[in-house]
């Protein structure tokens, strides 16, 4: 009678999809069982081969042009939408408007319960800076993987000296730095890469009294992390998965 790990469960373990209790069970089994641990190593080898060697097909320039063209066309041909009153003749404009107003109140309550209004604005600013840096071909002002090049570059450009960390060996090579504008002030943006994912880290001197712990604030498929430490604000934005982005945050706070 064998007591090997069920195949599917080993894959879920590899994918980080098991709860803590089951993960620990498998971990301790792998330490004892040669067959299963060999199988697990094979799966890990397959994953790292796929991630490091498989081609990633980026959207060609022509596709981006076609996309722009489509939007231009849509902007020209779309007519203003019919008033909602027409399709809901039994509802007066007043009812519709007050309904919309009520929804707005509910929505704003829901989001502000766990974020301060200032933070709401900042999350938005951080995210749009992140997205813009990916879209507009303006990712970096200084391109270098060397922190001794990136850190001095900010001298004279901003009135503080950002902490720049070398996390290359941990799998987060530095791509470069950039000057950005958030919260009505110039800030330092540091760009890291993790496989094909780009990570923006924004930092500037904080005006908050006490230190804030790390918090995750997500929006539209992106993760945003925020904390303050030693008088500085730190904001991290990326589409990288939570697990690995948390690792970067942890390394940065060390």
């Amino acid at each position: 009678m064998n007591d090997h790990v069920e195949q599917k469960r080993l894959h879920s373990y590899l994918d980080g999809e098991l709860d803590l209790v089951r993960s620990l069970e498998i971990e301790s089994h792998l330490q004892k069982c040669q067959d299963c641990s060999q199988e697990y190593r094979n799966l890990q080898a397959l994953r790292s081969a796929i991630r490091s060697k498989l081609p990633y097909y980026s959207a060609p320039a022509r596709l981006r042009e076609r996309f722009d063209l489509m939007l231009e066309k849509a902007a020209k041909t779309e007519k203003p939408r019919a008033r909602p009153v027409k399709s809901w003749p039994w509802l007066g404009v007043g009812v519709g408007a007050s309904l919309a107003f009520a929804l707005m109140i509910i929505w704003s309550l829901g989001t502000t319960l766990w974020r301060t209004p200032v933070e709401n604005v900042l999350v938005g600013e951080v995210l749009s800076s992140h997205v813009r840096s990916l879209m507009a071909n303006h990712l970096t002002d200084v391109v270098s993987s060397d922190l001794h090049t990136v850190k001095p570059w900010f001298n004279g450009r901003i009135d503080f000296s950002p902490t720049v960390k070398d996390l290359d060996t941990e799998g987060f090579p530095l791509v470069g730095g950039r000057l950005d504008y958030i919260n009505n002030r110039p800030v330092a943006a540091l760009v890291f890469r993790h496989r094909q994912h780009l990570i923006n880290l924004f930092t500037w001197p904080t005006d908050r009294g006490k230190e804030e712990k790390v918090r995750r604030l997500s929006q539209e498929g992106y993760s945003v992390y925020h904390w303050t430490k030693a008088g500085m604000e730190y904001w991290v934005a990326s589409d990288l998965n939570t697990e690995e982005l948390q690792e970067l945050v942890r390394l940065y706070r060390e």
Partner: protein
Amino acid sequence: MQEAEKLSRFEEAILPHLDAAYNLARWLVRNDHDAEDIVQEACYRGLKYFSTFRGENCRAWLLAIVRNTGYDWLKQKRPNDLVTISDEDPPTDSVERMDHLAIETSNPETLLIQHADQEMLKQALEALPAEFREVMILREIEEMSYKEISGVCDIPLGTVMSRLARGRKQLQQYLAKWNKQG
């Protein structure tokens, strides 16, 4: 929402994920030209339904549309690419447990996978059924969770799990077979 505002919001939502969309389409249909057409068509569809999008996970939303568009295209142009695979598990657990271990699991296999070159891996992945290939891409390249994949492919979580397991196993077998031939 004003049309101009809608368009600019759409652009902002879609552009960051255009690479992911193209990569998925490219792996589904396996050539550049058709992948471009599919992403373009998916963007049209996306724009049409953008007002129903609730703004939660834009990448997953776009990839689901790309995937559907890709499948529609395959059904029409290359129906043979879509073999219906059975998602049923083998009747008992024991069959699924480490059954292939008995055949061949050894250090050399790990080495072999580590030394597989890009071309070999690409061919192996392209040889997988589309249903396995897409979950592999979404999991390994896009690093999506089972839940996200289940949403994109419109399949239950358990099916995501078993397709991943079977896809990986087939990849290992292809690589082992080719190595012997080579």
